[in-house]
């Protein structure tokens, strides 16, 4: 059995495509068998909704009168630092950016109530944002100061661009020390008081296409409530990570860089997020359709939370000091049960990504495809797989000669 994206799109156009989410396909394949399921099902939809720090947005604010050159100057959006290193009126803001006067961790643990992620949420929600610019002035761009409200509807372009999203599997975080620690994996109580994890497991995009056989550059996706695209592989994309017998990476591995028009996105799916003692970030909704081109691809989408295993990593000492040490391997089925046993101790677990929202994303994407408004795209090129030999290197830190 094999299908092409073109054939699937014909069915989508006619309203005849069979589309199910990554949770439903598990039972369908169990009942009907992989062969029959692959023949009947055309698309499997996935979803994830969790904090993704490597996210940001860029936009063009239009030319003021007289003109001002942002590039090389300083710019703030609601007091949060924006990056003004492009041309005169282009601005970039990252999810982790903070106001200059945020105390950060000087008052430990810092609260990080408002940062770049919150600016993006407010912008998408249609709220006015305060833009403040200090420029150096040139003959053609004489103005040196600008204080104005801006609104997404007035911007020429507003683009969400996330260099690293949708991590394929991730660490489960624990704290072996005797004091509370505040991490990007949330608050970790002392002496293995809790475990935090963050993926949607069996619903997660890259865990349903573990060898990146369908997801590639140009794949059209659900992004932040609107339509986006896979732009590239994400940073730290690591296809060479160790995998179990089902092909599922046993630690963080593949990643995606995503892009999309911010103007048609929705603040319900782009949430400014504060990690106590760590920083501000953005919770991003991502959903990716997987075309069932073959039995092999269908088989990948039948992955369950029992098949996916996460490494339990100590964030008090091992993680900060780059010590590679997996305390235990636990399945998402176990993590989702609310507690796991580590060294004979029952440790309560919590998730940082919302499974219920991930399911809504997968179902929304399903409805879009079924209604015919979301035909699938053929990737321009697949992202690097195992054969690329690509892996993530630590920093090669070297002294700078005098």
């Amino acid at each position, binding site marked *: 059995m094999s299908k092409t994206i073109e054939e699937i799109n014909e069915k989508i156009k006619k309203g005849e495509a069979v589309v199910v989410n990554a949770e439903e396909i598990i039972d369908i394949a169990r009942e009907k068998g992989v062969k029959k399921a692959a023949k009947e099902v055309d698309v499997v939809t996935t979803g994830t909704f969790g904090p993704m720090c490597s996210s940001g947005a860029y936009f063009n604010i239009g030319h003021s009168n007289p003109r001002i050159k942002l590039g090389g100057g300083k710019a703030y959006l609601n007091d949060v630092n924006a990056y003004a290193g492009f041309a005169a009126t282009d601005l970039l803001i990252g999810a982790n950016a903070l106001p200059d006067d945020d105390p950060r961790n000087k008052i430990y643990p810092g609260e990080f*109530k408002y940062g770049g992620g919150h600016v993006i949420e407010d912008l998408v929600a249609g709220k006015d944002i305060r833009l403040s610019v200090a420029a150096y002035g040139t003959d053609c761009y004489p103005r040196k100061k600008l204080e104005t409200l801006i609104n997404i509807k007035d911007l020429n372009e507003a683009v969400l661009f996330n260099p690293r999203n949708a991590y394929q599997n991730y660490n489960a975080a624990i704290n072996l020390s005797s004091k509370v620690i505040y991490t990007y994996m*949330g*608050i970790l109580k002392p002496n293995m008081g809790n475990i*935090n994890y963050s993926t949607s497991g069996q619903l997660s995009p890259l865990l349903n296409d573990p060898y990146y056989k369908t997801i590639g550059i140009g794949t059209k996706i659900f992004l932040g409530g609107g339509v986006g695209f896979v732009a590239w592989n994400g940073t730290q994309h690591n296809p060479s990570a160790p995998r179990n017998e089902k092909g599922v990476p046993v630690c963080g591995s593949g990643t995606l860089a995503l892009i999309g028009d911010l103007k048609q996105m929705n603040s319900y799916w782009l*949430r400014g997020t504060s990690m*106590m003692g760590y920083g501000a970030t953005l*919770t991003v909704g991502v959903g990716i359709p997987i075309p069932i081109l073959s039995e092999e691809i269908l088989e990948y989408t039948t992955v369950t939370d029992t098949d996916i295993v996460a490494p339990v990593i100590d964030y008090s000492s091992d993680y900060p000091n780059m010590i590679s040490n997996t305390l235990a391997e636990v399945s998402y089925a176990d993590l989702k049960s*609310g507690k796991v046993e580590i060294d004979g101790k029952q440790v309560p677990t*919590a*998730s940082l990504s919302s499974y219920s929202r991930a399911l809504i994303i997968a179902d929304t994407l399903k409805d879009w495809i079924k209604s015919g408004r979301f035909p699938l795209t053929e990737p321009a090129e697949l992202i690097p797989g195992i054969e690329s030999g690509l892996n993530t290197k630590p920093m090669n830190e070297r002294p700078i000669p005098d």
Partner: protein
Amino acid sequence: MIVSKKIVLHFPVRLVDRSIVYHLIKDYDLELNIMKASIIPDAEGLMVIEVRGEQTDYDKGVKYLTETGVRIQSLAQNVMRNEDKCTHCGACVTVCPTKAFKLDFETRLISFDASKCIACGLCLKACPPRAMELHF
């Protein structure tokens, strides 16, 4: 009948230096568990307490407090979840010391039982979208 209630007491400035809690225990035979107290000279004082005792004693104690000028609020009204902000991730579940948050294994939604809440404030900090709000 024995009752046990969690309440918030607001002490006006003029009462901050009076030993009201002492009278509550001694004169009305009530058992108190102080969960939070913020008493600063020349400012309104605030105390979160769990009160346990006979219903009649409790009622008399509340009457004493009210007549003295202490404003009483039920704790359940103080910690609230902003439903628009909550994403049902679940980060609150393990930090809450009284298990006020519960994960529904079927829907994967998180419920908040305000009656179990002691207003410690831990969830306010642990909530990534800052959906938990404290209103004193």
